[in-house]
């Protein structure tokens, strides 16, 4: 079976500094994979490379067996990969409902359609309402997204990310800046909405990581030093040393 | 050969004048991300103020005081206008400066009327500096070159050699960090805006006597200035210099040498359709270079944008 996402000797330099230094990673279909590592390890850069925000300097990224080199973010999205952002990235002036509906448009085949009314499509309305239900924002439906609380905006962000029906979901620190109860809420949410999909996430909160992921990769200074189940990674002495060491240096 | 030299000097004068405007504009743009549509209006105000002052105190006092007044007005516009509009985003900022340009033009008409003002250079510069093959070069032109170069060197010196310049350069890229270091960034912004508009004012003071002091003078030069900084690359000072000189020389030379499209097309082996007055291509065949001199900058801009969207010296992610 081809893996959902495969990275082979992926590299990225900014000027002379190499941030990602040869990452090999294979993520199977339906896997929940977390990338952890100390600050500055290159986790966000890795995300931005995979989603086409930056071009890679070397190596390859394949999604369902197709090479992603040179593809723009919208092309990658159309191939079934969707992402959320570390800093909330929604459409603040549009209503919550409108936010979700817009993210459904491409996947429902509307493309650059300018002859059918969005309000008349039952599939769109119902699809959007279903997602609002899932992320518990039905009551906020007609408010501009910009006025929602932080946790609600994060939930909306996840809603937008999953709406397009992508089967590879990438979440960049979905619980960053949240309180404990909010974190629990988002974790439950992520678990329900990504059932049956491939999940790749970057996360700092170890509680979230061990609660959600079945595979963990540890990224330190642009290299993956270990990949395995949560238990195996936790027990890996190399990880303990390197991660703890780096974490200590960090603080 | 002599004629080339004369045109080189003329083009240099135009180019440097453009540069005085585009330097301030591009500096303001790279700092605040806002393109000041009213920039040329401050140039016009410089000319009018200098004219008014010169009536009472003579040309030199005008050259000294008018840019200061313009700079203070510019700083006021930043402080009480732009800073307020800034919260709405870049597009409203641009619309605001557009409205300001309209308002200043109307204001000038309100105060000075629609006619050209009899603003003239100082008597002391009313002589021929030297002559090249019978073409006399007025001293005033040399004076213009001198002033612009002096200002450019001064600007470069301030930006690269002084403490203030360092802070400005840092604030261009990392306004938040500079603010965290205890510098008053809004004040720096206001200052840069004031200095930028004052530069435009200087340009107005010295260009007024040559190009005429009338309500349309901002409009005539304004769009060329925008084209200049787009060609040079938004935010690049060197780009502004190169593009200004380029435009100065291109327009001067194409006005001086009567190149005809007819000759060009014949060289490429096309035959002139007969009778020409009935052909749909008659306008193409009758084009001459002086006729299109003023639109060449726009053509250049469109070509640049197609083949090099970031301008000559622009950064890719500008």
């Amino acid at each position, binding site marked *: 079976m081809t893996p959902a996402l495969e990275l082979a000797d992926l590299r990225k330099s900014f000027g002379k500094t190499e941030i990602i230094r040869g990452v090999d990673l294979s993520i199977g279909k339906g896997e929940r994979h977390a990338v952890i590592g100390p600050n500055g390890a290159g986790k966000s850069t890795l995300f931005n490379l995979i989603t086409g925000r930056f071009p890679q300097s070397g190596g390859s990224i394949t999604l369902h067996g197709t090479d992603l080199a040179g593809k723009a973010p919208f092309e990658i999205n159309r191939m079934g990969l969707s992402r959320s952002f570390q800093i909330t*990235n929604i459409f603040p002036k549009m209503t919550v409902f409108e936010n979700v509906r817009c993210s459904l448009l491409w996947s429902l085949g509307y493309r650059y*359609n300018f002859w059918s009314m969005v309000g008349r499509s039952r599939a769109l*309305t119902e699809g959007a309402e279903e997602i609002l239900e899932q992320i518990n924002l039905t009551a906020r439906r007609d408010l501009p997204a910009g006025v929602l609380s932080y946790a609600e905006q994060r939930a909306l962000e996840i809603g937008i990310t999953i709406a397009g029906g992508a089967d590879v979901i990438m979440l960049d620190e979905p619980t960053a800046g949240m309180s404990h109860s909010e974190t629990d809420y988002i974790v439950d949410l992520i678990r329900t909405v990504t059932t049956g999909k491939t999940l790749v996430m970057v996360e700092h909160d170890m509680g979230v990581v061990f609660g959600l992921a079945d595979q963990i990769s540890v990224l330190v200074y642009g290299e993956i030093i270990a990949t395995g189940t949560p238990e195996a990674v936790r027990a890996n002495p190399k990880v303990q040393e390197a991660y703890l060491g780096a974490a200590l240096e960090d603080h | 050969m002599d004629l080339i030299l004369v045109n080189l000097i003329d083009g240099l004068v135009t180019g440097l004048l453009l540069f005085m405007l585009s330097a301030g504009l591009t500096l303001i743009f790279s700092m605040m991300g806002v*393109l000041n549509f009213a920039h040329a209006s401050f140039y016009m105000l410089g000319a009018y103020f200098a004219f008014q002052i010169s009536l009472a105190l003579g040309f030199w006092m005008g050259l000294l005081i008018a840019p200061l007044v313009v700079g203070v007005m510019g700083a006021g516009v930043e402080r009480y206008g732009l800073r307020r509009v800034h919260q709405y985003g870049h597009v409203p900022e641009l619309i605001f400066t557009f409205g300001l340009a*309209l308002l200043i033009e109307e204001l000038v008409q309100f*105060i000075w009327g629609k006619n050209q003002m009899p603003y003239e250079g100082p008597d002391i510069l009313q002589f021929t500096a030297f002559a090249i093959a019978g073409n006399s070069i007025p001293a005033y032109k040399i004076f213009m070159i001198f002033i612009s170069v002096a200002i450019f060197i001064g600007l470069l010196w301030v930006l690269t050699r002084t403490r203030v310049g360092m802070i400005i350069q840092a604030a261009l890229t990392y306004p938040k960090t500079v603010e965290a270091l205890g510098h008053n960034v809004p004040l720096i912004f206001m200052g840069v805006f004031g200095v930028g508009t004052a530069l435009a004012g200087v340009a107005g003071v010295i260009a007024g006597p040559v190009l005429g002091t009338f309500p349309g003078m901002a409009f005539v030069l304004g769009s060329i200035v925008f*084209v200049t900084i787009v060609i040079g690359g938004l935010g690049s000072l060197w780009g502004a210099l190169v593009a200004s000189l380029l435009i100065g020389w291109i327009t001067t030379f194409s006005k001086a040498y009567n190149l005809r499209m007819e000759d060009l097309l014949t060289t490429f082996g096309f035959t002139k359709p007969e009778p020409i007055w009935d052909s749909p291509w008659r*306008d193409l065949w009758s084009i001459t270079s002086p006729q299109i001199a003023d639109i060449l900058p726009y053509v250049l*801009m*469109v070509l640049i944008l197609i083949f090099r969207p970031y301008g000559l010296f622009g950064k890719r992610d500008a």
Partner: protein
Amino acid sequence: MTDQSTTNASKSAQGVRAGSMMLALTPWCIAAVALLVLPFIFTANSAITIMNQMAITIIFALAYNMLLGQGGMLSFGHAVYAGVGGFACMHIINNDAFFSQLPLPLLPIFGGLFGMGLAMIVGSFSTRKAGTVFAMISLGVGELIAACSVIIVAFFGGEEGISGDRTYGLPFLGVEFLQQIEVYYLIAVWLMLSAALMYLYSRTPLGRMANAVRDNPERAEFLGYSARWVRFYSFVASGFFAGIAGALFAINYEILTEENLNTTQSGIILLVTFLGGVGFFFGPILGAIVFTLVQTVLSLQTELWGFYLGIVFVVTVMFFPGGLAGLIMMHVPAMRLGKLSVLALPYLRTLGAGFVGCLGAAALIEMVFHVRHASVGDHEMTVYWTTFDSHTVLPWVLAIAATVVGFWIARATAPSLAAAWSEANTADGGQP
């Protein structure tokens, strides 16, 4: 008819949907009836001329707002798309063989197609970026084409422009469009049609994505849409409707000149749209109506009309970025609460006084202008239907008094207006 409102479709009742449909159609029906009866109320030829101009401006402003309001693209050269559409139609009118086979009411389609064609060419490179870069390109291209009009005489007719005779077209249901009123109805039909199409366009997937790209182009790219192509399609659609406006101009005035293309014209349409309000679909309509009326009235009364316009525009950008439509829609929450009446008296006090202050200030401006620019010895001037000597003291005292007192009262009563405002927007006992 608001931009913000979502469609009212819901899972539950079809009945609700039908009801909201009726509600959504009401403004359109009112507009159609109004367009139908207006010529019977204002029968004068000059009135019909003004209404024609108004209708053309509405179409153009709506087309412009497809870019500015819905797509977030600021164009400083949009007049060229209307202008080129108009010039193309003028050439069709002058082509006897073709035009005698073409009913005049179909001509705007050609105008639209030419406007669209030009927009496709320019848009192919100008829509790569939004914001400042787009604005500058639009300015440059606008200037370029306007400047070409004196060079490419074959198409633009040089200084004097080109003119034609609309009545040579194939008679349409026996109508030859000799009279102004016949042209009025032709324009009115096109107005309804274009406005409806543009409104519907904003409800299509592409129209919705235009909003999304305006708000957050990067996120839109991660939803599968190329921000650039979304902008391109908006631009092309806007060019089409601008071309229609240009064609109607050609039909109405039977002459096009460089003035239809230049930056001044582009600036005016920006002004009209922004003053009307870019956030709502009806904003530009409001802007076009008010602007045309005020322009017609004021430009006859005072030489300084552009000066006042400049002031109003700058003040609007600074303090009311939502424009006229935004001001109106600000009152919707209070209206929903049924507390609009709370505002009536404070409004009357503050705005009434402010209005007097503005009148006083305008009188002062007029007087200063007269003293400065009237020919020597001409001391007689007329302001507000009153003729007086501008070199005597009394008018100055009166004007200054009106200005100072008016603004002073407005300022003094402003806090009570603010209090009334928050009162009107608070539901009795609780949540705002």
